[in-house]
């Protein structure tokens, strides 16, 4: 007869293997975090126990990193807000309308989502020169919109598709205009979708490296670029890089746990890659 615990956990072999795999997969993530709490002298010491220190974080606070972090927050948040304001009604329109060409717009949005960043960076770099948008947060927000907007439309449309049209028709019969119906009836029903879209959109902009590398200098430099700045010519500041990396990845990890149910769809749109 099987022991009692084995009947309680019939899948224990698989569970054990799952746990082991999870530990292996998360090891690099945990390793870089612990690195950020090590003192410079024993940063690569193999001892598992060490006296944690905040010196790396303190050093960040004294340098220019704080400004970069604020820049990241402001530009990613603004791009998300703008993309949502413009993109959500557009997604609704695409979901409900039956006009010709709607499908072609869909394909265009998909291509935009998929295009290599360098393809937008070359022309926008030249144009930004005339508009004096280099090294400004405005410029960053504009270039983030090239992918955020397409993403919001692409992500929100299926959520609207899932809302039964009968509700809106009933409201229309009561004399409600299309957009009033949208605001009062449809939008509240897609609350979770809106939250997930906004979070994924934010992560996409937050994780950007390429655009910020090319289009910012000192004033608008974002946190990911600042981290690369710690790759010094004389000696590598691993501790500071790890501390900055930890700070930069914490918000996205927390957010993504909140919206994990919607990640599948959002990732299909590629929000988090690149």
């Amino acid at each position, binding site marked *: 007869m099987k022991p009692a615990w084995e009947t309680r956990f019939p899948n224990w072999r698989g569970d054990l293997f799952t746990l082991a795999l999870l530990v292996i997969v998360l090891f690099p993530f945990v390793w870089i975090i612990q690195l950020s709490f090590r003192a410079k002298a024993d940063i690569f010491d193999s001892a598992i126990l060490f006296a944690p220190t905040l010196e790396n974080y303190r050093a960040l606070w004294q340098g220019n990193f704080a400004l970069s972090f604020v820049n990241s927050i402001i530009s990613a948040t603004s791009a998300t807000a703008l993309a949502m304001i413009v993109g959500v009604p557009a997604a609704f329109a695409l979901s409900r309308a039956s006009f010709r060409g709607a499908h072609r717009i869909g394909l265009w949005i998909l291509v935009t989502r998929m295009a290599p960043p360098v393809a937008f960076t070359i022309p926008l770099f030249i144009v930004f020169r005339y508009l004096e948008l280099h*090294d400004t947060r405005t410029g960053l927000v504009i270039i983030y919109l090239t992918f955020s907007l397409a993403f919001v439309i692409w992500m929100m449309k299926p959520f609207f598709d899932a809302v039964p049209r009968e509700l809106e028709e009933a409201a229309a019969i009561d004399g409600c205009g299309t957009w009033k119906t949208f605001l009062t009836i449809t939008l509240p029903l897609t609350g979770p979708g809106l939250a997930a879209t906004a979070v994924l959109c934010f992560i996409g902009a937050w994780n950007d490296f390429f655009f910020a590398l090319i289009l910012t200098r*000192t004033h608008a430099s974002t946190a990911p670029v600042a981290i*690369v700045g710690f790759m*010094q010519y004389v000696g590598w500041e691993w501790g500071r890089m790890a501390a900055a990396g930890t700070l930069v990845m914490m918000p996205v990890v927390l957010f993504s746990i909140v919206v994990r149910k919607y990640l599948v769809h959002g990732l299909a749109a590629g929000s988090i890659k690149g």
Partner: protein
Amino acid sequence: MKKPSITNGVNRGRRRLVAAGSVAVASAALGLRAPAVIGQTKRFSGVTLNVSCWSAKYPRLLEAYVGEFGELTGAKVNYDTPGLQVYNQRADLELSTKGAGYDVLNITFIFSNRWIGNGWFTPLDPYLNDRNKTQADFDFADFLPGAVSPMKDRKGVVYGVPWVTDSGMSVATRYDILQASGLGMPDTFEELEKTLAVIHKKDGVAGFLTDNHWGFWYPPFLQGYGGDVFRGAPDDLMPTLDTPEAIHSADLLARIVRNYSLPGAGGMSYGQTQELLRAGKANYAFVTHVGGMSHAEPEAKVAKTLHFSLYPRGPKGRFPGIASHGWGIPAGSKNKDAAWEFIKWATSKTLITRMVREKHLGSVTRRSIYDAPEYRKLINVNGQDTGQIVLDTIKLGEQGHMKYRTPPVYPQVNVQLNQAIGRIISGQMSAKESMTQAQTSLIADFRRAGMKI
């Protein structure tokens, strides 16, 4: 190496220094402002200066003093020192748009001709020659000619004030191993190979290690064997990388790295090799003076066994690489007067002397400081006067062999050389194949950039 003790404010006045540095030190000791700004205090109130340089030792040490400039002039300074790669990227893009994002930028060695040649920096002659803008005590003639010449365009107009002239030289981190084998520092490339054969893996230490900046370390080999990068720089920029001399010397360098270095050494960045050399994992290295001196710091394991020499020579002579970096004012800056004030301040005798005394700054560009015994004592390593090696190297620069650096598309040349030698070391290609490919690719690069050769 014994460091001169750091003088604190109390006994500063008692110190007696000879030579030109003393005037500057004395004024600092009396708490005087730099003479250049006497009577113009707070002239730049309300001005914000954006200053950036890559994170070399001097610019990072300078950060501690930047606040003083603000107090002197009233200007607010945004000071930024990212890593070299990010710095070059940003500076190049900003300069190419002629933007006003920066007021003072470092003129990076490999980009100097591209940036100066394209008119992206402000000529400094009008500032240097104007007594109202540059007081006599700045003494531009005090800068080593070898350091200033890379900051000039072909007509001789000055665009930058150098803060470092990094001379290529050799170091043995474990000179004791060489001595135990009855060897001295090798003088020629052939002696080098023979020496390495003896010392490699002795005491568990690899014979050789140098970072992957082959565009800087390889030309001395090439020129030492009678070849050159171009047929006749600066006028005839036809590459000559597939000549027998080029192939022979590339093969020699690659052989040295392959046979006598650590695994993966062919692709290690400067930071990586420096860490390993400091830790005593490899012995002989090509280094710049700044890089080599960092191994003399007390924390370095090899500080006591360090020995320097000139870069080795080939049958045709000795042609060590010399890399100058300097402060310049981007053409698009809107605060040029304040920017010039900053450059003068950052390279003034007063400040540099203080940085030498207070922070052990080891790389300077002023003759007067080289001549100051205090500085020479600072850069004396295990009884060896490294300053003399620097001066000799810079003197060798007068042969004009650094002219290969003159094409405005030099960044491409640099990358091609890095990759060509990298391919031979890693065994992807033979020296002949790799150098022939470098030759054709470089010609294609030049054509694409619209150059006629």
